[in-house]
């Protein structure tokens, strides 16, 4: 027998926070995935909102190319405030 589809589960713990990945589960369709996610991942009020996404619809960057992929951000120190020295007299900016 073939397995049911795999869904990734994301939960917003409370309003004001991002949805966050918490795990996955198998279900026939999105409705069943939502229902199961509620029963499995929010038994103690861990969430106020749930997203479920079919795992096969997630496109991910390749960890083997992690270095090259994120390299463009590595040598741009001038993008950080600490790159700019402040005179002592100007205390906070």
């Amino acid at each position: 027998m073939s397995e049911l589809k795999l869904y990734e589960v994301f939960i917003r713990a409370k309003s004001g926070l991002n949805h966050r990945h918490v795990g996955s589960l198998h279900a026939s369709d999105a409705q069943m995935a939502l229902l199961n996610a509620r029963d499995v991942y929010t038994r103690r009020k861990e969430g106020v909102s749930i997203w479920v996404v079919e795992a096969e619809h997630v496109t991910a960057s390749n960890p083997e190319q992690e270095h090259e992929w994120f390299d463009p951000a590595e040598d741009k120190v001038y993008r950080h405030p600490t790159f700019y020295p402040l005179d002592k007299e100007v205390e906070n900016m």
Partner: protein
Amino acid sequence: MYSQGLTDAKGQEEPADLLAEFQAKIDREEKIEPRDWMPAAYRKTLIRQMSQHAHSEIVGQLPEGNWITRAPTLNRKMILLAKVQDEAGHGLYIYSATETLGVSRDQLTDELLTGKAKYSSIFNYPTPSWADMGAIGWLVDGAAIMNQVPLCRASYGPYARSMVRICKEESFHQRQGYEIMTVLARGSQAQKDMAQRALNRTWWPSLMMFGPSDKDSKHSEQSMKWKIKRFSNDDLRQKFIDATVPQAEHLGLTIPDPDLKWNEETGHYDHGEIDFNELFQVIKGNGPCNKERLQARINAHESGAWVREAAAVFQQLQSEKNKSEAA
């Protein structure tokens, strides 16, 4: 997760530079994530340990499920139901984390039902009295917490994260068990005796939950190096004994070990010899309830076949419906 379909480098020599970088990453306390390169043996060790862990959560529902219909009050029944439901949830968290290693849920289930995969030996003991619900929560979940807290820092990210969720819930399990014991220990003589007998039954098997002694533990050294494991079996066992003995004394219950005594010098309790032969026998399948537990899982799987079939047909119909709506 989105890592399924990874294949192990079977029989192939793994590149030394990758191995070195992998170990360096672990030594820097960086987590390994599903699609990162990892040695085949690391993956294999995790699949073995995590699936055993998940199976233990699932089979662990059975000894307590035994008392749901006979819980002494409605309150106790609701608590026990919630606890057993938690165990099912814990199984699911860990199964889902195990699947990120590229193994399918069907395969994991199959390995449990065919006896190929193991689960914790403790669940092969019977629960003849209500007091066993107390002893299990207090001691078995207590021992599980000792094991699982360090696993929250395991090097494999999905495993560590599932452990964080589980540890948050285990504390309720242990406390409700200790509360059952407290009520019995302060009740009639018959209730007190019942609590003592449950402690007598559960004490040694719960010490065995930490696994063989360090000198005989075949997986330990490599697992420590990979930071899947943080403390040795004997260290965790000692920690558990040191924490638990005062809790028993507080209730006026006696730990069934005549050699147990406080050692001023070491700052730990000395304990009598553990009969590891019993542990190995239970692991081999010769415990009091091995056959019954496995049969219960097989029956549940077989009688649930129609649900899985219906869900599969429903999935098919839903996806056809979605396609025709999109067209």
